[in-house]
């Protein structure tokens, strides 16, 4: 786990605004977010429902564009990228883990991981990724044959298999019970420690702040404050 003091900026968000227009209503979801994400850190974005966490995550991940403001990834502006360039950016750099796993139901665990490895620049072997999450024995299982926790593990193997520079996890334990949640969180911490992959995780469980290097608290579309934690607690030791 790298200390945030290294200050090697991976992503820089500068006064990000995001407004949605629905029929006659204008909703300002993000209202000037300034945030730096450092290389190798474990960052938690904490906020209540509707605070704009997921929108912020989508913008960080390059699947949504801000209405105003700029974002750079490794110093390169990604707001001005074309759809093609943005797709390549996601393909090469970003690993997503969703709350509802989003596995492809017609593919086995192995094949789900393959969906990443077949397009990535320097991927792991799918089995290697599955071993990393302890799902290698279930490689030939279809999602419907796996529990929710197992599905999320496969989803993590899928995200990690491309060796992304950053993993974005949108409430990865949101649909899981305590034991399974623990497993996922431990694994995320392990990946962060072992591979140095930057991890950004959205959650609304406040106690998880202790496992991260930093926690950004988002309220009504702005960063309210950021808490830095020099000694992240191992997940097992969290009172959670």
């Amino acid at each position: 786990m790298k200390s945030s003091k290294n200050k090697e900026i991976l992503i820089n968000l500068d006064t990000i605004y995001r407004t949605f227009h629905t029929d006659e209503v204008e909703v300002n979801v993000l209202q000037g977010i300034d945030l730096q994400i450092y290389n190798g850190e474990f960052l938690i974005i904490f906020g209540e429902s509707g605070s704009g966490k997921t929108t912020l995550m989508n913008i960080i991940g390059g699947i949504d564009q801000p209405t105003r403001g700029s974002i750079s990834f490794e110093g390169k502006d990604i707001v001005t990228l074309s759809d093609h360039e943005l797709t390549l950016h996601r393909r090469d750099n970003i690993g997503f883990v969703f709350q509802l796993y989003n596995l492809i139901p017609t593919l086995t665990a192995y094949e789900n991981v393959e969906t990443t490895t077949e397009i990535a620049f320097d991927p792991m072997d799918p089995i290697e990724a599955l071993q990393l999450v302890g799902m290698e024995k279930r490689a030939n299982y279809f999602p419907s044959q796996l529990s929710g926790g197992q599905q999320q593990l496969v989803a993590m193997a899928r995200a990690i298999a491309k060796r992304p520079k950053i993993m974005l996890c949108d409430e990865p334990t949101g649909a899981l019970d305590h034991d399974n949640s623990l497993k996922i969180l431990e694994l995320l911490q392990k990946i962060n420690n072992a591979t140095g992959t930057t991890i950004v995780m959205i959650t609304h469980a406040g106690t998880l702040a202790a496992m991260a290097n930093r926690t950004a608290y988002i309220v009504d579309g702005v960063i309210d404050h950021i808490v830095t934690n020099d000694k992240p607690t191992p997940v097992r030791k969290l009172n959670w």
Partner: protein
Amino acid sequence: MMSVLNQKLKQDIRQKWSMLLAVSAIIAVGIGCFIAMMSAAWNLEQAKNTYYASTRLADFRLDLKKVPIQEVKRLTSISGLSEIRERILFNVVLDIPKTEKVISAMLISMPDKAAPVLNNITIRSGTYFTPGRAAEVIVGEKFAKARNIKPGDIIPAILNNQRKELVVVGTAISSEFVYLTSPGSLIDEPGNYGLLYIKRSFAEDTFGFHGACNNIIGLLSPEVEHHAEKVINQLSQRLKPYGVFTSLSRSELFSSLALDNEMNSLKKMAVTLPVFFLLVAMLILNVLMVRLAEQQRTVIGTLKALGYSNKILIIHFMKFALSAGMAGGVLGIILGYWLGVSITNMYVIYFTFPALISDIYPGLFSFGLLISILFSVIGTLKGIHQVLQLSPAESMRQAPPAKGGAILLEQFHGLWKRIGIQWQMILRGFFRNRGKTAVSVLSATMGSAIVVLAFGFVSSIGEMVDLQFNQVLKSDYHLTFHNEMDFSALDEIRRLPGVFKAEPVFNVSALFRMKNHQKHGGISGIIRNGKLTQPIDEQGNSIQVPESGLLMSRRLMEKLDISIGDSIEVTPAIGERKPVKLPVIQAISSLMGLMVYADYTWLNRILGHEKLISEIRVITSHNEKQKQAFMKQVRKMPGLASLTDLAEQKKAMNRQMDNTMRYMAVIMIIFAAVIFFGAILNGTLISLSERRRETATFRSMGYFEHEVAGRFLRENMTTNLIGTLIGLPLGHWLLVISMQEFSTDAYSFPAKLAPMSLLYTLILTIIFVLLSQLVVRRILMNENWVKAMSLKE
């Protein structure tokens, strides 16, 4: 309570409007086909019935050598005969100035003074005959228009070997010749073959027919109408000593036959073709409704829990499907009416009626709407069944996760691994959604069968023209004579300028009888090893006439219940008219008429004649000067009844095919395209609505939009190509059936499908899929996949 559901219905329709529109379009085409063809048939039928009744079209017609009028009058004693009219009728050659070609016409006698006779004519311009002048003529309107002949003009004609100048007093049309063709032709050639009506007295004087006639027409009393054949047979039996060439009931007259065939074909097509469209629409709707029921299971459960009865929910879902049915029905009626008018207008060119009007048929329209509603209701049943099956508690729970599991193909491990993830997903998807996959394949099967049928129509008729004019008849011109000529006529023709080859034909009108079957027909005596007329066997191979015995068309053999080797009783209409027994040696394929061939010499001998000639077929030089010289000489030939220009006939036939068949084929292909587009778009939209999250996930993982769209393309291409491959033999089978249905005694169509048509059909399928893909990509581009990513499945 209902207003809330109606609100939901509105929203459902708004959300799924593109899918409903695709279904409606297919229904519209089906109903459109039905209404267009049926209303065109009814327009023809109405015009025909009015016309036949107002001009008192005869129930039968007999052509004879010559019979005294006294004898004709005595026929009225035959019971079942209510009215009879005798006429003098000849094919003659015209001598139209500044026309190099020999133009033939049918000359028919009419009473000197206008009278409401059977087969009366309707004057279209000028007047009926005037008293005082003998050589007056009323010209068939179509011929007059094509040749720019007007009242007051003079038409020189060779009548009974004398050149007469006929004064045109008027133009007319006749219900007897709604569709006019020259002898031996199928196609009307307005400027090349005409109708001329002359005064009875003038005809008597010119042809030496005082107190005699050679054509009898008559009306039957209503009580014998259904067994007309019996009365007609009785008549021909009575008139046998006068040499009956042909005896035809009204429905056997070529004009009536052609018209009836057209109406029947339209009606058959009107009933069969729409089935394809409605079936596909029904199946697509079925998939759509089942999916809708699945997608809305929670809503349904909530509504049930709130106390909405099954009946209300059924009506609610039914309304959704009915919106597609009704929209399709109404669009179909509009399309059908418009297309019906267009088809009817096309017939105005070929069929001559005083008025051929496109009517509006409220009953037909209502029936069309009813069918569309019926099919959409059937398409809803399975979905409704699903709605009924759901218990409120169960349906409020989330649907069980999508089924997993390997498919049979995965047992071929090496192959399975090699095909890649995209194909693995597609193939598993196919097997997991068997019903939906089957509907996609079936839609393509139906669509491609229609395309094959469209290509087949064009190529079959092309084949018929090719067989008839390139394989069977290889001559340039046919010269027919009023009376049989002796063999010296052949030498005379051979000496004409530009004649390369000339062969004699001995045509004998005869009555064929086998046990209790009998039929009037003819035998063509052609020379053995001749080059200009080559009958073809049932496989289309050229064959020679046998030294003795008959080659008979399969259709005639079936009508007379004859097998190969049987001997048939033949009573010729010339000479002593004694019946003879002749063996049938081989069955042939006959494209025009119920042909019977025999060796020229053998036929002459067996009937007790010495090399008689009734027709000479020639090949001439194509050099313009020589052609002109040939025509000039032919025109002077005594006894010439008509000259048939085969190149002209072939041209006219191809022209008519271009106008009608190609038009029909293009429309059929456009309609098939509607099936393809409708089915593909619907299938894709359903898949997309079910896989929105999956698609969004792929995009977030870094898959390009074209890669995501590519999966839909592969899916659609696979199901549509498989469907098309099944549709090819189905289309061919339909073609064979259609051609059998369209064939009559007067003409038959071989079912021919050019091998390239199959390739074109496959190419068209690929084009349809690619064009649909443009729409699919548009939909994907407009998809809000950020939102789709967090959707629940």
